[in-house]
């Protein structure tokens, strides 16, 4: 034991290796966190440029820029890349950077697995993106890849898509195991579970969700693989299979997946709002229980994505009631955030702006979610732009704004420099305006009857589509500003103190800025 400890002490004086091998072979949680974040942002730009193609085609009625086949490839790849390439890796990146520093651990519990789970991702996405250049084109059946459109009627590249999904799944599961092992084993003495920072709590619960549902996704794509290549008929009605089975299995993964994409943002915002309100988080315990309740409920609501497939009325009612129940813990969280701000001493630096926008806009997404939960009304909303508006309201100002808020909040800790506040605020306001302009009119389009995933539309939808496209272009272009801000912040700027935010709490702020390559070699004492 002592021999092991000795080598460790020696190694701590080493800085990172030089050159490319530093990144290829690294087991350092900060390096891996950085790679995850860079990868995620790259994918965000790639998936975003596909959204630009979609919005450009929808700028006016008629087919102008792309043909329907390619349009469908764009919607599919946009969804897959944003979900699996941008949002999920961004949260894993934040977890890598912040969890060890928040719980007083020297690194993640399983550093080599950490390296592997990162490097699987670029390989997976290289395969996924390469399908665009294959004969017959990329997957064109939507990110939900419903059978039999994705099996019997899918393009030849579907098998590559399945392989890529498998790799992403393995990466996510390993990342989740790592998070759980780290949180349960490496907490500093005195940090009991109910003293853990909320970002750590939400990630712990997210990790359990990942372990529970990624194998289900692997299962459903494997069944597809068998149907396509080995003559089985899981989803082929003419062979005795069941196309609806696909949807049940997919959404058993898919619904917890949407919470996987939002819970860590809940955690991060629960750090940022108290910090800039200069007041402790209201209702810590109820926040933890609410996240737990949301996670548990997420397993029993999947069929609300399938209200129109003709499930029996008893099932319809059960899934409607269960889905509506989710509003209760979600409401508790929103009330807690508002109560945290109430009678605080508020200031509005960029992280706080993103966090406040998160609360407001996520709540709007929650309201439309509640409307969608009402099964009879869902018959009118289902698969229209109302749904597109809903999930973009929870994902863009939810997940993405949560990630931006976190990035601005911890950038001083990561880089040792303050970012440019004026540019940060510009980035916020342009994103805020662009995003609302892009997605709010989609509610109206959906209610007026515009189906989703169509490359061309009837004339009465023309005006709002044009508004929406202008908003989307604004939002898209603004994200290049974020890239500039981060590069500028890495290269220089005002020196950041150990705790740049007056009201911030947590072990990460006890470390110098930038955080040294190795931190908490000796665990801190938490009282």
């Amino acid at each position, binding site marked *: 034991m002592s021999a092991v400890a000795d080598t460790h002490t020696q190694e701590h004086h080493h800085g990172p290796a030089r050159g490319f091998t530093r990144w290829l072979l690294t087991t350092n949680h900060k390096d891996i966190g950085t790679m995850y974040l860079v990868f995620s942002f790259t994918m965000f730009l790639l998936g975003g440029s596909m959204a630009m193609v979609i919005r450009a085609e929808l700028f006016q009625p008629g087919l102008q820029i792309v043909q329907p086949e390619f349009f469908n490839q764009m919607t599919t790849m946009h969804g897959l890349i944003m979900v699996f390439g941008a949002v999920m890796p961004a949260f894993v990146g934040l977890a890598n950077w912040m969890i060890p520093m928040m719980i007083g651990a020297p690194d993640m519990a399983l550093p080599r697995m950490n390296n592997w789970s990162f490097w699987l991702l670029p390989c997976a996405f290289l395969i996924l993106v390469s399908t665009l250049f294959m004969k017959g084109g990329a997957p064109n059946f939507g990110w939900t890849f419903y059978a039999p*459109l994705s099996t019997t009627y899918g393009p030849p590249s579907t098998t590559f898509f399945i392989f890529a999904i498998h790799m992403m799944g393995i990466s996510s599961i390993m990342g989740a195991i790592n998070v759980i092992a780290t949180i349960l084993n490496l907490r500093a003495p005195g940090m009991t579970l109910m003293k853990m920072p909320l970002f750590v709590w939400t990630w712990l619960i997210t990790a359990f969700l990942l372990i529970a549902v990624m194998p289900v996704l692997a299962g459903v794509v494997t069944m597809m693989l068998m149907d396509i290549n080995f003559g089985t008929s899981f989803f082929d009605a003419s062979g005795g299979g069941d196309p609806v089975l696909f949807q049940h299995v997919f959404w058993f993964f898919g619904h917890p997946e949407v919470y996987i994409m939002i819970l860590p943002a809940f955690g991060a915002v629960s750090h940022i709002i108290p910090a800039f309100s200069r007041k402790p988080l209201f209702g810590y315990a109820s926040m933890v229980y609410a996240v737990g309740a949301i996670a548990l409920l997420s397993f029993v609501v999947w069929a609300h994505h399938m209200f129109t497939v003709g499930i029996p009325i008893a099932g319809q009612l059960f899934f409607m009631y269960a889905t509506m129940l989710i509003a209760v813990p979600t409401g508790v969280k929103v009330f807690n955030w508002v109560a945290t701000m109430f009678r605080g001493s508020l200031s509005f630096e960029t992280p706080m702006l993103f966090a406040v926008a998160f609360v407001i806009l996520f709540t709007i997404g929650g309201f439309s979610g509640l409307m969608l939960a009402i099964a009879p009304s869902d018959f009118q909303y289902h698969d229209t732009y109302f749904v597109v508006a809903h999930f973009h309201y929870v994902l863009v100002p939810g997940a993405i704004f949560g990630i931006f808020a976190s990035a601005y909040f911890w950038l001083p800790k990561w880089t040792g420099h303050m970012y440019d506040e004026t540019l940060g605020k510009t980035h916020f306001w342009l994103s805020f305006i662009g995003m609302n302009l892009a997605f709010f009119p989609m509610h109206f389009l959906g209610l007026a009857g515009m189906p989703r995933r169509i490359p061309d539309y009837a004339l009465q939808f023309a005006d709002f589509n044009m508004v929406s496209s202008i908003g989307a272009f604004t939002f898209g272009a603004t994200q290049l500003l974020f890239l500039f801000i981060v590069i500028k912040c890495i290269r220089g700027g005002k020196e950041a103190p150990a705790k740049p935010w007056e009201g911030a709490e947590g072990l990460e702020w006890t470390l110098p800025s930038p955080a040294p390559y190795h931190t908490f070699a000796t665990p801190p004492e938490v009282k």
Partner: protein
Amino acid sequence: MRVHAKRAGALLGGLMFPAWSQADWTLNMRPGVTGISNDIFSLHMTILWICVAIGIVVFGVMFWSIFAHRKSQGHKASNFHENTVVEILWTIIPFVILVIMAIPATATLINMYDTTEPDVNIRITGYQWKWQYQYVDDNFGYFSNLATPPDQISNREDKGEHYLLEVDNPLIVPVGKKIRFLVTSNDVIHSWWVPEFGVKKDAIPGYINETWAKVDEPGIYRGQCTELCGKNHGFMPIVVKAVPQPEYAAWVSDQKAAAEKERELTQKDWTMEELMARGEKVYQTTCAACHQPDGSGSPPAFPALNGSPIATGDQAGHINVVFNGRAGTAMQAFGKQLSEVDLAAVITYERNAWGNKKGDMVTPKQILDYKKKQQ
């Protein structure tokens, strides 16, 4: 019948035109023309207003804090961070609100699921990318295809008033009768939606889903496929024309007579020119979406027919592919979709159009013989 239809159409067009021209900036769902769609609309409005009310309270408190409790205004932070009573209250109150929402929702849902005692039964089958309507009580049926000219879609021509929401053969239903729709699919999953009816049901291969509507007012109602079903998902609209019962009855008997006439056509002696002319029409509505109007296809999913070994090979092989489709591909079995005449015409057309100059023809009688052999 025609006159009636035109009159009803003109009347409705006049009534609906203002609605359509103002529809550009429509913000909200429209109440429909069935009891269910009106129930859904009031449910939608109720929930919307509840959400707005909650939003005003929550965001009100938030904006109050944002304006009044700023550091820049010298506000000092309090230090409270829990209050059990408040926390229990804001768990229970939302729960009660949800129960209040759930009661009318449950009642509406039960009503929507009640497909018993229908007056008319219509089977709706989704195909890539068209709808088939079969009047199962009266034993006739037809396909309903997009009627918008391709030139409008590709912007070579001005777009019409009902761009992408017009079909060649609309579904005709009687007003004031309970119509049961039996919804299924021949290939991938589609979804049949008419917003004004409050009816949306997925068309799933291997399943027959049931739903129903009782239309209160005569009129033309338009909808679209709402489940991604491939390339032309955006180009398979639904048009329903609701007509008064007597007009409906007259139309049904016309259709039955026409179906009988169609069966007689099989026995007629067809010339090459007649078959080619009819075949071209069938090809453009049925085959061109995949194989392209000029037979060039879009490989690899949809092979070219111009110069294809099947279209220029022996007749039996060609008939077999058109009749039975190709398992595991997007090529459907058209044997049950098209009449003998249409099958003969389209096969003849494919063998002689573009660069294919086989010079032979397939007659309806040959198809009938082939059909008999299959059974």
